[in-house]
């Protein structure tokens, strides 16, 4: 029983990273696709730019999550990026 608990505990960081990559990454990409509207270009072009770039951002976020030294660092990186983008996205909303 102890061994099982230890095993589950050990996979915690991995599961955390998977959550960060799959959901955190998507959220970040979505956030970026809204934040881009704050750029000085016409609305349709800005919307399209945001969509086009979103997949690169998602992929970069996933790579970051698994390249970071620890699961905590993975989340920290995503949160920092989100903190930068959120005010921009809010100003558009």
């Amino acid at each position, binding site marked *: 029983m102890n061994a099982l608990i230890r095993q589950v505990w050990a996979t915690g960081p991995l599961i955390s990273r998977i959550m960060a990559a799959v959901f955190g990454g998507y959220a970040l*990409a*979505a956030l970026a*696709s*809204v934040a*881009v*509207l704050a750029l000085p*270009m*016409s*609305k*349709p*072009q*800005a*919307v*399209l*730019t*945001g*969509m*086009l770039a*979103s*997949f*690169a951002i*998602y*992929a970069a976020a*996933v*790579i970051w999550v*698994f*390249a970071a*030294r620890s699961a905590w660092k993975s989340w920290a990186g995503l949160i920092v990026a989100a903190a930068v983008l959120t005010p921009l*996205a809010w100003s*558009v*909303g």
Partner: protein
Amino acid sequence: MKADKEAQRAGRGIRQSMSGLHTWAGLLLGWVLYAMFLTGTVSYFKDELSQWTRPELARLSQVPDQAAVAQRIADELGNVAAGSSQWSIRLPDGRNNSVYAFWRTRGQGQRAFGEANFDPTTGQKISSRETLGGEFFFRFHFQLHYLPVVWGRWIAGIAAMFMLVAIISGVITHKRIFVDFFTFRWGKGQRSWLEAHNALSVFGLPFHFMITYTGLVTLMALYMPWGENAAFKTPAERQQMTSELSVFIQPGKPSGQSAPLASVEDMVRQAQERWGKGNVGRVTFVHPGDAAARVAVARGEAGRVSMSPQYMEFEGTTGKLLNVRDSVGAAAETRGVLYALHLGRFSDTQTRWLYFLVSFMGTAMVGTGLVMWTVKRRSRLRDPERPHFGFRLVERLNIASIVGLSIAMTAFLWANRLLPHPMEARADWEIHAFFAVWALTLLHALLRPAKAAWIEQFWTAAALLFLLPVLNALTTQRPLWHSLAQGDWVFAGIDVTCWALALLHVVLAVRTARNRSIVQSKRMPQVPVAIASSGAAE
């Protein structure tokens, strides 16, 4: 000194984590990706396949005059689809021998529409066996089947994201592969799966990356609607963006007065003057037969790598040119180019073959990757004779997803030739046959020992592919010798390609069988020397 060691350890750490990410990103949806890749590869010739699946339709030795065809079909739609608020006609180019048209019908809400294929020379609806033809593989490629369309597209999109991550992590893991490309010791030893996977990945890397990213772009409005939702509050604003993406005519209200359409032929002729004789693509009618009718004639796909809209808008009842749209904003043009790169519709025949071959290499890359996982894992098993459930599952799914798909796709074409026509829901039954055969290959893979299953399915695929042109000769009036004699490169090309693919499957079957005997023959080389020495001693 210490900083160097730290950097080295960090480098190895990244290499390892990216390697793990690459393996799992590739493996988890690898089977879906393989199916998407193979059906996508085949889709580059979907128009040709659609011709092959309708052998009753005579081939067109020349592309008919698009202007005349447009008029004929428009006249026919006036009978078939009178009262419809919107028609759309796809004019024939060198690759189709029928005209595909669809129109809005007064059905449930706004989504109802009718569709049909028309003969370009007579304007009448064609009568040939009911089939989806090449369109089945094309649609399966990005929205699967039996699922609500949106779910299928989401699954395809998720798979594409996994692929994108697999590509990027693969490059990070093997950074040196580009530098060492021609200096690697390739081709030595039994690790052919690993080397094949690496080689295929490297050659086609620009293509694989491009095709994956552009695939996501084609459905980006579905995957990332947030910007659109945040920016546009009214339908009018939304239409601003729609007009950057495709031919867009202000729908407007019909006046209620009926008035005949002006000469569609003239409108298309003006477009031909602008873009070239055979380079008119789609003709769209809004409120045809009404006084407020509008007609948009769009440019064809040849000669430019972009799908961004270029069209001429005419007043329907008078034929007066109202507006020419030939450019869009920078982001919209970028999206147009990326979309065009994915579909490759601008290609001439040789370029289309290039797309097919490189995409085929991509398919093989995914397949060899899946197999490589089982090969590597087997060497790490505690008891190779009795692998654990997860391993066995992956091994069997590999067989059904890889060779099984070849068998199923060929079975679809067999069904096209064998099912009686006319038949109720015939097109659907061809598709049921595809899935039924695919399910059978999975059953076979589960019941047989793995190696035997691979070999038996390779031979089955080879036989089905080899016999398909024979079946064609027996069941239609267009056997290979006729096609060759008449220069019908569509039919001849497909028949010959089937034979080439059959040969490929034979080679794979033989190599897989031979792999077994390599393990046994390890003891052989010592024997002749022993005999020779003992013989000499006597």
